[in-house]
């Protein structure tokens, strides 16, 4: 899977209130959430983000609340993936569970500039900064989580397992 797009760069400790403010959590409709994605951090983001665009950030991306609405909003905004120095743990789980690719790559996250064009090969773990002509290798996804991704998220993984159990 090749993910390619223009970069929106944010700083350290981007919290879930910045990703999707709690005032909008009275709905779980992905499109509605996408309309307010990152708006307190960058008011232009919801209107100007384009399909395939990539978010980069510093350490501890997604800290704070357990709201799955945060990765849902980013995914529904058609962001192809997130590259960050590190991720907060609940956000990390949630992103995998809903099928939003995320990559822990401190060096790439630090180097990449806003507006750069970047491509990520999810299989080989190679990040290419097309604007700067630099490449980076990211940590492989743990095998256990690859199974979840291969099934298309945790729920499909479980649904398959349930079906197998029923037919046994």
């Amino acid at each position, binding site marked *: 899977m090749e993910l390619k797009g223009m970069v929106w760069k944010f700083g350290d400790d981007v*919290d879930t209130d910045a990703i999707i403010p*709690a005032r909008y*959590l009275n709905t779980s409709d992905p499109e509605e959430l996408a309309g307010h994605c990152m708006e307190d951090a960058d008011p232009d983001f919801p209107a100007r983000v384009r399909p395939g665009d990539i978010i980069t950030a510093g350490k501890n991306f997604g800290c704070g609340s*357990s709201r799955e609405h945060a990765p849902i909003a980013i995914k529904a905004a058609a962001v192809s993936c997130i590259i960050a120095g590190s991720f907060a743990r609940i956000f990390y789980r949630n992103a995998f569970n809903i099928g939003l690719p995320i990559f822990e790559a401190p060096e790439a996250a630090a180097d990449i500039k806003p507006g750069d064009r970047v491509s990520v090969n999810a299989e080989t773990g190679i990040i290419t900064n097309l604007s700067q002509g630099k490449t980076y290798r990211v940590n492989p996804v743990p095998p256990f989580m690859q199974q979840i991704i291969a099934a298309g998220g945790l*729920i499909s993984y479980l*649904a398959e397992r349930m079906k197998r159990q029923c037919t046994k």
Partner: protein
Amino acid sequence: MDVLKIRKILHNGVNQMPMTITEKILAAHAGKEQVLPGELVSVRVDLVLGNDITAPVAIKEFNKIGVSGVFDRERVVLVADHFVPNRDIKSAEQVKTMREFARQHELPYFFDVGQMGIEHCLLPEQGLVGPGDLIIGADSHTCTYGALGAFSTGVGSTDLAAAMATGETWLKVPETIKFEFTGTLNPWVGGKDLILYAIGAIGVDGALYKAMEFTGVAIAGLSQDGRFSMCNMAVEAGAKNGIVVPDEITATYVEGRCRRPYQFYRSDPEAVYTKVYHFDAARIEPQVAFPHLPENTRPLSAVGQVEIDQVVIGSCTNGRMEDMRIAARVLRGRRVHKNVRLVVFPGTPEIYLQALKEGLIETLVTAGAAVSTPTCGPCLGGHMGILAGGERAVATTNRNFKGRMGHPDSEVYLSNAAVAAASAVMGRIAGPGEVL
């Protein structure tokens, strides 16, 4: 020699490695003799929890799995506490989804308005969580129950949905950081100050993916309510869980209260910690976390002149009986400053009633406070105390991110209940010493 062998030898030749309390609880729920940090384990959960923001998403996902019911009706707890009493039509629809799911699956522990309290005040109080339990909840502050010697952590809605169906989840065994608090607590210093101090020292990702184990004589002397405040904020340092080894204080709290059998685990003396911090409690003043991160802490004496517009006392961090008593003690016979709105949120109906019986509500209302039914409301900028642009609040809550309590240009300062109450009287951030 590898680490495994060394650990076995260290443990007096017994063929079992020393473990921390967190490792022991995870091992027990994974059906294993022992677990090691970094290991991925599939574990049985004793209880799962959702609220009116996270449960509707989980219910939608649950219905896709294709199971006929939840794994155990008595172990799925749903609490409508964030936007309730319903703040608008959309919130009402969300709670309706929960209510209908609870009826359909005959869940005995769905808490609606009237019985509802702030989830992390409510579950321990109602004896639904106990020592040795493994709990996951679709709310980041689920880590609160570590204060009872349980392993307890926050997850998202999809993880909740999966656990509601299977009674299981997967976890990576965390490394443990030990925080030893020696010395005696200063007046007006409580669990909130100790945890803010620790977060100030290590940063908001200082314990990322790790367990925080709180120990030492200052913790041994800390009330159960104070321990809840500490473990509650473990997630604000990025931790997977916060935990206190249960003792006499825990035993007194859970006896006759817990609805299920419970078990006390303790860390082995030779257990391995990835890091150990020593803090002298005698040197810790009441702490104030400045905007916009909980790590921006300052001792009260270094706060300076910060004028405020609102004070919030309550939340899953500091909405317990101890906090109500402290707030009333500071406000008794005094008036809230003319430029300040003070809103107080007792954590549960039981806390509300007890505060009524003790005359605390009368004291607070007489002082000029608005006392509300339990809700998470203002803490997350939901309702019941939203800030306008440029306004400042002192809050006993747990997060002061940009826009957390309302307008993106408002500010939240985190403190304990005594500092919050004194600040309400003074109209600026102040300690109780200035008021009493």
